[in-house]
């Protein structure tokens, strides 16, 4: 509890400190539409670092670093380990994590360790294993090891990714960044938080939301599967019987 309080205090200090510059940020797509031919999509984030109203005229306006954290909807995720029992490999241990983000990309213009120190990154949620995203339920003893393995599995599916040098500065203050959402990107509400660092300190941050949604026929199918599940199942069976019957008629000799 004390630890979270300390993190919270640090976080508040970060916010208070961050009033020297303003950040204007936007993205290319407020909504990613998944259609039948969806094979992933690229989304672009861009913005400008503006002077704060009360900024001194001779304030340093370089050494800016931008880090963007893009997170998808959270869910409870379980990591399981197979162990050998009686010569058979079976799922032995498991650790569940509450509100684990289903998508997490961190994009920066420099390797993260050059942007801020570890604590500065963790406080701002710029590490996959920072506290808000790893809340083990029940079995806590192995939580550390299991969380690292879970993050590794997510990285292998391109759902977790660190992209160093992914943010490009086009001038001293104007930047842009692109990330690739894979074809199996989870549906839901996303949040992209852009952090402005200067000399290892957070100066400003700005959140944007976007959503990933199925649209059109696909949306109709996935919503009817949830809302009219019996009818959906019945239609599926009738479609199957019809397909089978049709082929029987077509191939009748």
């Amino acid at each position: 509890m004390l630890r979270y309080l300390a993190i919270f205090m640090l976080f508040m200090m970060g916010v208070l400190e961050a009033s020297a510059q303003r950040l204007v940020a936007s993205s290319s797509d407020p909504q990613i539409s998944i259609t039948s031919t969806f094979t992933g999509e690229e989304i672009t984030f861009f913005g400008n670092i503006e002077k704060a109203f009360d900024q001194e005229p001779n304030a340093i306006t370089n050494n800016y670093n931008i880090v963007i954290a893009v997170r998808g909807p959270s869910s409870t995720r379980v990591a399981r380990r197979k162990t050998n029992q009686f010569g058979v490999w079976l799922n032995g241990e498991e650790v569940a994590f509450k509100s684990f983000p289903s998508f997490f990309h961190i994009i920066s213009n420099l390797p993260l360790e050059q942007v801020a120190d570890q604590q500065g990154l963790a406080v701002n949620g710029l590490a996959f294993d920072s506290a808000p995203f790893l809340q083990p339920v029940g079995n806590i003893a192995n939580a550390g090891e299991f969380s690292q393995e879970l993050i590794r599995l997510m990285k292998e599916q391109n759902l977790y990714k660190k992209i160093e040098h992914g943010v490009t500065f086009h001038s001293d203050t104007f930047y842009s960044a692109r990330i690739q959402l894979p074809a199996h990107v989870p549906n839901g509400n996303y949040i992209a938080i852009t952090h402005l660092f200067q000399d290892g300190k957070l100066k400003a941050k700005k959140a944007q939301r976007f959503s990933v949604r199925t649209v059109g026929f696909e949306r109709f199918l996935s919503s009817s599967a949830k809302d009219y599940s019996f009818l959906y199942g019945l239609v599926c069976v009738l479609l199957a019987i019809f397909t089978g019957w049709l082929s029987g008629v077509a191939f009748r000799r």
Partner: protein
Amino acid sequence: MQLYLPIAEISLNIFMLIGLGGAVGFLSGLFGVGGGFLLTPMLIFSGIPAPVAVASVTGQVVAASTSGALSYWRRGGIDFKLAFFLILSGIGGAFGGVWTFGILREAGQLDLVISLGYLIFLGSIGSLMLFEAVGSMIKHNAGKAVPHKLPGQHSWVHGLPFRVRFKRSNLYVSVLPVILIGASIGFLGSLLGIGGGFILVPALIYILRVPGSVVIGTSLLQVLAIMAATTILHAVNSQTVDILLAFSLMVGSVIGAQFGASAGQHLRGEQLRALLAIIVLAVAIRFALSLLLTPADPFSMTILPGGAA
């Protein structure tokens, strides 16, 4: 051409799906099995989440069984009275299977039970069929008359009470083994995500001595009915039936099934059984390896339902 599957939430090549359905449909027409025991593992291997694969394959099995059952029905190859008893008990078994499925999923041991189930049933039935088929092929090649146990010849099963006459099958047997077989297939089918034809056909032949002319048609009708009920159960319970995935597989499989059915008429019974036995054993061995060999990655992950924010 990529197709986005709305329930599985991934994109897959539509021609790959149709091709996969076609290959499995061919086998299903050839042997009178649904093919679920091949298709489900293949889909999981393609990256489709296991619950979606299991549930969508049940839909595909309905289509594959329909075209097969129809062509047997036209030839008079279905014993409707026997099928009625099998279906009634099978639906009871399916409810039991879905209930067990839920308990195992909560305990995190569903994968283990599915692997063990595949291994035990595919392994034992595959070996039995292979021995029997190879034995009769050797005798056939040696020129000896194959001593068939014809329908009407009695085993202990035929001594049980509550006997019912199945006219089309030329049988007068107790309903107890019929109900037991039907319920077991329903239970295993819904638990393992398979039609169960590969268990049902040998059970009908070796236990009840149903004649070869009606065994496949009757088994297809039972599989059709049970899988239709299971599809609806899955759709209502877990909402994991992907209709686009199921439809792509169906289109491939119904076409494949037609070719399979006509190819099957050029092969002798024991050759068919030996071929099916080899395929069944190959799948069993694959599951055995996954249980016995040190896994490349001992870690796996799943999302718990209801935790979405």
